[in-house]
């Protein structure tokens, strides 16, 4: 019953359980388009890596079907799937040189020696490690090993490459550099990439689409901007980027606007995204950088807060405030150089537009 819709990868009602009692993946339906860079993002234990392992063939699906280029692959062993894979700790074979590592998949495909050498050289050049073919993996730095792992996953020209937290072991600077490199390789080669990470900034930087996993379910599947600007529920809002939570009760709903009454009696005007009926509880999500500090003009929401802590961040000041019963309310104040004196205990007015604050499902 495969539907030929041109998807490179298609999960259809996939479920997975390891122990027969708990579902790690609950009813997964996902289409990945050819050439797409799709990231599975989620905290550990959310089921994202399990999905990747099922796709690679290392874990069987308990129920449902996975299609690769519209062919069901549940009964295809991993070595016949032709999927490139980059592992979390690179899994470079320690007893082989870099060049031998890269030649390994080509040997299996019975390429001639000269073809092999050419492809290995091309792959190494692509990751700018042309001189390192004769080294052992252990002689390379973490970043170099990472590039070798990427080159090895690509050297046999797979249509689909899976990456399982490939940058997890690198330091911040190198990680950011590698994010761009992988992104560029993806763009140049036009391959499909399924990328697993728990790092939301990585997901936002690299992906065409991001699937946010939690509790075995995709919470939201959309582009990075959409994910950040319009989170569909509190979990996504919390997980992606920084976020202030204000909990209250819905007092009125007008199309996609609503009024929320907070615990201290303040009423907010918010965008209704994911709420129940009037009288239900809701959690309002608000990005710290969308808050105006001592606004000069009138705004949809104005509220007073007390400064609890000021942290200097160079380009901005991070102000922790107590607002409407939330003691961890964060405001990012742009460093304008006018040296406003912010001190603990000062009371300031905060203001924001109602479209910048989303009324979502209630979380404690």
């Amino acid at each position: 019953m495969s539907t030929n819709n041109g998807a490179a990868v298609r999960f259809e009602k996939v479920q997975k359980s390891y122990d027969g009692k708990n579902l790690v993946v609950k009813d997964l339906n996902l289409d990945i388009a050819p050439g797409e860079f799709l990231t599975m993002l989620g905290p550990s234990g959310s089921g994202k890596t399990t999905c990747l392992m099922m796709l690679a063939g290392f874990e069987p699906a308990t129920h449902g079907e996975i299609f690769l280029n519209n062919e069901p692959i549940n009964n295809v062993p991993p070595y016949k799937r032709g999927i490139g894979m980059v592992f979390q700790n690179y899994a470079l074979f320690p007893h082989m040189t870099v060049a031998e590592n890269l030649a390994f998949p080509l040997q299996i495909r019975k390429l001639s020696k000269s073809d092999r050498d050419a492809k290995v050289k091309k792959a190494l050049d692509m990751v700018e490690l042309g001189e390192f073919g004769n080294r052992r993996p252990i002689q390379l730095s973490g970043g170099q090993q990472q590039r070798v792992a990427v080159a090895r996953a690509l050297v046999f020209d797979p249509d689909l490459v899976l990456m399982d937290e490939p940058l997890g072991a690198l330091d911040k600077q190198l990680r950011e550099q590698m994010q761009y490199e992988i992104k560029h390789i993806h763009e140049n080669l036009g391959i499909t990439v399924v990328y697993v990470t728990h790092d939301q900034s990585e997901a936002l930087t690299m992906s065409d689409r991001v699937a946010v996993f939690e509790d075995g379910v995709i919470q939201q599947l959309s582009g990075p901007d959409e994910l950040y600007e319009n989170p569909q529920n509190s979990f996504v809002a919390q997980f992606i980027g920084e976020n202030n939570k204000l909990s209250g009760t819905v007092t009125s709903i007008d199309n996609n606007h609503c009024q929320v009454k907070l615990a201290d009696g303040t009423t907010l005007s918010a965008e209704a995204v994911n709420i129940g009926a009037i009288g239900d509880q809701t959690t309002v999500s608000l990005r710290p950088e969308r808050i105006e500090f001592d606004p000069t003009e009138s705004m949809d929401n104005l509220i007073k807060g007390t400064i609890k802590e000021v942290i200097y961040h160079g380009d901005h000041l991070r102000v922790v405030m107590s607002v409407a019963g939330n003691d961890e309310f964060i405001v990012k104040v742009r460093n304008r150089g006018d040296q406003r004196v912010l001190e603990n205990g000062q009371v300031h007015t905060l203001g924001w537009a109602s479209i910048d604050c989303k009324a979502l499902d209630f979380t404690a």
Partner: protein
Amino acid sequence: MATELTTHDGQPLHKSLAKALRREKLRALVLIAPLLVFVLLTFVSPILDMLFRSVENSIVADTLPDTTRALQSWDPLGDELPSEEVYASLANDMMLAQEVKIHTRLGSRLNYDQPGIASMFRKSGRRIKRLDAEIHLDAFTNVNAAWATPASWTALRKHSLWPEAFPSSSIAWNNWAKFVKSDEGDDADPTATSPYGFTYSALHHDLKKLSSEQWNKLSSSDNSELSALFNGLQEASVSFPDGNYKEQFLDMHDGWGELDNWQTIHRLSPKVVDSYYWASVDRERTSDGVVQKPENERIYVTLFIRTLLMSLLITFSCILLGYPIAYLLATLPTRTSNLLMILVLLPFWTSLLVRTSAWKVLLQQQGVINNILVWLGLVGDDNRLALINNMTGTIITMTHILLPFMILPLFSVMKTISPSYVRAAKSMGATDWYAFRRIYFPNTIPGIGAGSILVFILSIGYYITPELVGGTKGVFISNRIAYHISSSLNWGLAAALGSILLVAVLILYWAYDRIVGIDNVKLG
């Protein structure tokens, strides 16, 4: 040239560093000192002692000091028996040896190289007292009665030519002194009585070799007593009889007339000999040089080869059996693998003797395994398999006993191999077998190496198990070593066999290091 770095107070940096580290080094040394002493006492010194024993042979020269001295002028390759002088020295040496009862020990030692010689020494020891040794004593007293007095010897021993010009007499005198002390107690004074006849015979043989200059010195000695003794002695001694010890010894035992026996004594008179080593490789030194022993006496080379081959076989079967178990241990969930690990370690907690005996029960002709095979109809009742008291028994039992030594290092190496290696290989298109062969297996080689070295070296020196289940065909060289240590008491041969085994292991270790590289060995 780079200028040497110094600290602020001008001291060279390396000196300053060494000083700073010295205290720590000293502390580390103190910490390991107990172990160091223990290892030296219980490991290094026994090995050195063994190496020493394998070549040490002072017993001949110590027991027959004058005989070995006199034998130096004898040609062992000729077809003549030693001279009368040698027999006289032998009589003198044997007299003391039987008094302090060490002649049988010498006999046993010589018997290793010359079977039958022990009984000759035993018999001669019993009869030595009946030897007539008066012949030269009489000759000397006939020239001058003063020779019979103890004072004559005291005077002679004070002369400057003693002991250089009197090699035989001086040894004979020492023998006499020891004889007296052994006979009468430690406070006996050998100078108080004149020595027995053997000493005079020794003197007679020494006098024959004196130069006329030496004669002059003696007869014109300041000591009037001594000059009187030597006055006219030179002329008279020419007509002294040469002695009849040879005849008497030949009467005592025919063996003293056989060249073989004398060649053996001559060959073994040095304090350091290689005879044990030749014996260890089924060879012996004869008058024709080093030759192979007769076919029915060759055992050690066969045993060495058998020990090596069987150890290799045991190592190999340990790899075959241990590899899958170690793999299971390394890949199963912790709970299951812990349980399995207990099963692996269980043999360690059981007495070796119990385990070996259990195999006896299992493997014997009327044992469990044969019974099952007969019951299944695989083997006829009158055709039961011989699984014990032969090589099969040794290999089966030793493999079982040494298996943990293979599994544990393999396990610890496999534990460190990330499962993502094999997954990566499979994602690149490798089948299970190909991934195992090209990726998993090469990474377990350090474990195989470590396990193999352990098992091989342990089995090459194994002793109890082959002894109990090996019968005659399944014993190792170590069983032979144990036999020589505890039954035949030929410690020298046991030491030589042990040294060869030690060297063989070291050579194999060296070869292993060259081929595989000892860095490639992981114990965990």
